[in-house]
């Protein structure tokens, strides 16, 4: 297992190395920590935390990672793994899904593409019209269930083919388009869906829901210590590392986050709101 980490400044790379040493995470488990440049067309000016390059770099991993890496699992920093990820790794792009470029877990709330491309003000019709103008002979099914890109498997070999590069180019075109129209507000998520849409398979592989269970304030059966990956999304509640440790919402985060926070405080690293 190898980690590939992307940060915006050198000081973050230094902090991560310090934290790893404090936690006893072997240095050899990290292949690289890359400081990535800001790129104007990534920045949809909606929410500062969704606008940084490290949020969008997941979409450009075929370029950012060495060509001998053919597959990668992206994890957001507000998830914890509660099980071995080998099963998840092997569930993607095998058998009938070998031609797929993107694999992810469909949204549990069932929200569709129409919702994702419409943003909060429900202006998906603007997107649909622009899509039909750009591709007169192509249809997009906006009733498909959208996915959450916090746990994202990418078939890099597929995305480096001619069709895959085309998918990336189209995705970038739409990112720039959205800068002007501000049609959607979901950061990298709608773009990840477009990447899947323009890829060879024209869709994404649906992963088992247990690999991205999103926190909800209402009781959920699959929110437990046996689920593969738990995910604390941005708004409800605040991020676990900023929460009061006695919050019920972070009880499954604490077994991992508590020793990390002890190291973080010990090293005197900066704290604040995101």
């Amino acid at each position, binding site marked *: *297992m*190898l*980690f*590939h*980490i*992307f*940060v*915006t*400044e050198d000081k*973050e790379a230094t*902090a*991560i190395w310090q*934290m*790893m040493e404090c*936690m006893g*995470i072997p240095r050899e*488990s990290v*292949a690289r920590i890359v400081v990535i440049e800001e790129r104007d067309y990534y920045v949809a000016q909606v929410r500062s935390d969704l606008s*940084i390059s*490290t*949020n969008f*770099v*997941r979409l450009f991993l075929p370029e950012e*990672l060495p060509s001998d890496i053919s*597959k*990668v*699992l*992206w*994890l957001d*920093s*507000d*998830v*914890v*793994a509660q*099980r*071995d*990820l*080998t099963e998840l*790794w092997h569930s993607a792009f095998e058998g009938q899904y070998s031609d797929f470029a993107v694999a992810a877990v469909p949204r549990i709330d069932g929200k569709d593409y129409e919702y994702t491309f419409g943003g909060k003000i429900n202006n998906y019709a603007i997107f649909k019209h622009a899509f039909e103008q750009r591709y007169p002979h192509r249809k997009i099914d906006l009733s498909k269930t959208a996915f959450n890109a916090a746990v994202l498997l990418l078939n890099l070999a597929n995305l480096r083919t001619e069709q895959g590069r085309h998918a990336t180019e189209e995705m970038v075109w739409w990112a720039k388009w959205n800068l002007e129209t501000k049609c959607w507000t979901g950061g990298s998520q709608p773009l990840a869906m477009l990447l899947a849409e323009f890829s060879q398979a024209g869709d994404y592989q649906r992963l088992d829901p247990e690999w991205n269970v999103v926190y909800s304030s209402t009781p959920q059966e699959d929110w437990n210590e046996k689920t593969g990956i738990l995910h604390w999304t941005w708004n409800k509640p605040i*991020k676990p*590392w900023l929460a*009061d*440790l*006695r919050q019920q919402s972070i009880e499954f985060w*604490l*077994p*991992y*986050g*508590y*020793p*990390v*926070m*002890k190291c*973080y*405080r010990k090293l005197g*690293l*900066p*704290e*604040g709101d*995101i």
Partner: protein
Amino acid sequence: MRRVVFFSIFVVVITSTVLLARLYYPWQLSPPQETIHIALGANMLVVPGLVTTMWSVQQHTRAPGRSLTLSYVPPSPLASISDFLD
């Protein structure tokens, strides 16, 4: 005498071959384990989250001779935050 020497050499060669074959046979049978590549991203304020994600993955990903090392004890509901972190 010559026969004994030849026989001894023969026995040594055969025994060594069998032992070496037994030693390397399982290794030759098992395919090389595929490396799982995991990408993460963070700015400074997300570093605690990123390291927590890494740590959780490390705790569960299969590695020979490694065991789960979670030693967390749930905090008492009456304790304050500073009791845990300071």
